[in-house]
């Protein structure tokens, strides 16, 4: 009998499981460990101004992510103002408008900043439109000369930008630079001029304004840097050192020479940016990414289920792990248990009662149940009424144990109610038959075997990591299925058979 078809099926299942698992773990960044935290920030911009009853129009640039960050959960807090967001030339902005505001006005923009998924950080590749800069007279000549000079000392766009930024740092020391930049330019002025010079040199460039993400900043200052379009994509340059690249905690906000906020119809405009780091469960970040990434696919995520349903699956999904262990215990080791899946159900109950209490309560229940069952035996009842009677007795026993433990203050013992009572009743019945037909030894052996497997299953099913893995990556169940299928064709000896057949051991 060929097992090729089985190996093929198991292989396919394992492959699918690993592919989905790898995709989710590596590309969507689903956490491999429980309780993992992912960084995130709350961003708040407060815009205040003085209104005097005239129509007001206030526009505020909005971040749209970049440098590995994404913006989520945007909120606009603005009572009585019309709100609309618009996108123009790579910049997003919100426009607040109101007809007759009076007095001090405060408008808020709030958003969450999260690191994007590794697979999602797209680069901006829109090519710039080069417009000839509006240099005049001497500035024009200085620009041409400066470009000539810098170009002579550089090999490519990157070194050209670096050299230009270096020279512009101390404009006074260089004639052309001083003529272009003025004697003591601010960083923003300097960057704007640099953009113009680069444009004159035929290199697309833009000024970027952003913030540095930090754990707490009540008044986060704006940062400014340069981006140059080079080899098909925009590259950031540090304005101080001139080298390519900006620190990874910089969040780009908007581009160009417009200010953060613009006001028409009011006075005393002032803005305040506040930032607070609020790490969140990595799972939530990953789920959010998944939802953004591919609409239809994400609908299949367990993380979107209602909380109670999720709680149920959190437990249910560990059952296959327990069942798999049971297969190993029975078919590989050869432990005898009562009922095929009884140990797994007991293990589930142990989750609520904790192991020690679970063992004590279970043994107590079965022992008392057996005593009652042996008594019922004398009454010569027929099977179904007898089973029903045992079930009722089991429930009564559970109730009285709960009541007694409540009196004693043993609150753990209250969870006895979570034992699967039907399974218990069947176990008691089966145990009596085995007890009578095969002796107490066999009955106790099977009872002990069941408890041992239950304990083992509980131990594994209760590991945080296992619970987390099967819940976050349910596709791993396909892997367990594949392994179970393979075990289904395990035709070797069970460990217990080595003992059973040890008489053959003497043979050479």
């Amino acid at each position: 009998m060929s097992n090729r078809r089985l190996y093929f099926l198991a292989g396919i299942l394992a492959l699918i499981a690993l592919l989905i698992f790898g995709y989710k773990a590596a590309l969507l960044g689903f956490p491999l460990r429980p309780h993992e935290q992912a960084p995130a920030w709350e961003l708040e911009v407060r815009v205040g101004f003085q209104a005097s009853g005239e129509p007001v129009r206030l526009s505020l640039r909005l971040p749209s992510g970049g440098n590995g960050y994404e913006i989520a959960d945007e909120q606009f807090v603005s009572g009585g103002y019309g709100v609309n967001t618009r996108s123009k030339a790579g910049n997003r902005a919100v426009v607040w408008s109101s007809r007759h505001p009076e007095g001090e006005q405060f408008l808020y923009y709030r958003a969450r900043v999260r690191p994007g998924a590794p697979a999602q950080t797209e680069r901006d590749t829109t090519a710039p439109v080069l417009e000839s800069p509006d240099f005049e007279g001497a500035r024009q000549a200085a620009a041409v000369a400066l470009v000539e000079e810098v170009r002579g000392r550089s090999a490519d766009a990157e070194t050209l930008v670096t050299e230009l930024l270096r020279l512009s740092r101390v404009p006074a020391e260089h004639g052309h630079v001083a003529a272009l930049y003025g004697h003591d330019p601010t960083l923003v002025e300097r960057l704007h001029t640099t953009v113009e010079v680069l444009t004159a040199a035929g290199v697309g460039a833009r000024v970027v304004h952003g913030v540095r993400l930090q754990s707490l900043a009540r008044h986060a200052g704006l940062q400014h840097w340069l981006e140059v379009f080079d080899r098909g994509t925009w590259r950031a340059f540090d304005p101080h050192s001139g080298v390519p690249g900006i620190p990874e905690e910089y969040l780009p906000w908007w581009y160009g020479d417009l200010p953060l906020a613009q006001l028409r119809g009011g006075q005393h405009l002032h803005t305040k940016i506040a930032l607070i780091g609020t790490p969140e469960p990595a799972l939530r970040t990953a789920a959010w990414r998944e939802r953004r990434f591919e609409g239809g696919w994400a609908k299949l995520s367990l993380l979107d289920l209602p909380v109670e349903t999720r709680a149920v699956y959190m437990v249910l999904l560990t059952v296959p792990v327990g069942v798999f262990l049971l297969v190993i215990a029975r078919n590989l080791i050869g432990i005898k248990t009562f009922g095929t899946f009884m140990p797994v159900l007991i293990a589930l109950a142990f989750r609520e009662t904790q192991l020690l209490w679970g063992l004590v309560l279970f043994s107590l229940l079965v022992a008392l149940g057996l005593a009652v069952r042996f008594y019922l035996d004398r009454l010569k009842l027929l099977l179904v009424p007898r089973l029903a009677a045992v079930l009722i007795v089991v429930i009564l026993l559970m109730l009285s144990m709960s009541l007694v433990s409540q009196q004693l203050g043993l609150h753990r013992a209250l969870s006895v109610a979570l034992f699967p009572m039907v399974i218990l009743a069947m176990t008691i019945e089966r145990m009596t038959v085995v007890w009578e037909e095969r002796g107490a030894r066999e009955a106790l052996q099977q009872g002990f075997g069941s408890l041992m497997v239950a304990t083992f299953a509980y131990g594994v099913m209760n590991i945080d990591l296992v619970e987390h893995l099967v819940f976050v990556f349910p596709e791993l169940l396909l892997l367990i299925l594949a392994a179970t299928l393979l075990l289904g064709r395990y035709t070797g000896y069970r460990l217990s058979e080595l003992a059973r057949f040890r008489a053959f051991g003497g043979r050479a």
Partner: protein
Amino acid sequence: MSTRLFQRLRHAGVMGINRRNADFTLVYNTRRLYPLVDDKYRTKQLAQAAGIAVPTLYAKVEIERQVRDLADALQPYHDFVVKPARGSGGDGIVIVESRNRSGFRKLGGALLRLDELQHHVHNILSGVFSLGGQPDIALIEYRVKPDPVFAAVNFQGVPDVRIVVFLGVPVMAMVRLPTRTSEGRANLHQGALGVGIDLGSGATTGGVWRNRPVTEHPDTGESLAGIVIPHWEELLELAARCYELTGLGYQGVDFVLDIERGPLMLELNARPGLNIQLANGVGLLHRLERVRAETDVERVPVAERVRRARAWFGGVQSAT
């Protein structure tokens, strides 16, 4: 529990439960045919139709109402056996040796009142002893008087002979001897003794008791080896015929030897073959492979199959 033992078992061709289920019962025994052997009543009918002798059925109890009339039904019989039609592993069998005014006397001497017997029958009907707990019927049948050939190595019960048949070829046999611990029952897990039989000569070899090799009966102290089973050729042929009878490729056939009626087929088993290896001190796998290697084995006549079995598997010395 060493890997060396593991390798030795492999080398000896010992078949484990996983192997038996995966490569033999699942492959050669069609699920559909199981009821033929799992229900002893149907097996009995089948055997009788084919002219194979079985213990006479005195009565069968199918519904609870009939239990009340049990006393009347049992009136003509001095001794009998009550068994569930679908019992497994000998569970639920009561052997009544004699009766008196107050009730019945079980094998071994314990007394059983009529109401106790009736309750036992009720239990049988409600499926306490049946596979999967389905409702069952109770059979009351002739109590076999064992052939005296085993008198010296038997403790109070009826020894039975099991022959494992693969594709119509007997591959291994043993005799199961009741002991004091098994309370007269012939099931190994209940403490009966398993003694291997040489297929060629029909003579017993060594035995096994509670998974340990033994050479003497634990209760009588008599040597187990060298007892020649009477009607051996006939037993082998009957066993081989059971393949055509049920269509099960891999089965165990249980016989008892009655002092008056000779070999009687007791029951068939669709999942045999683990303990018999211990009793013989020989693994089954090599023999099963030998039969499987023959392409025509299912088409040759019974007598030829038995001849081949005796030639192939006879004269093997037990290793234990």
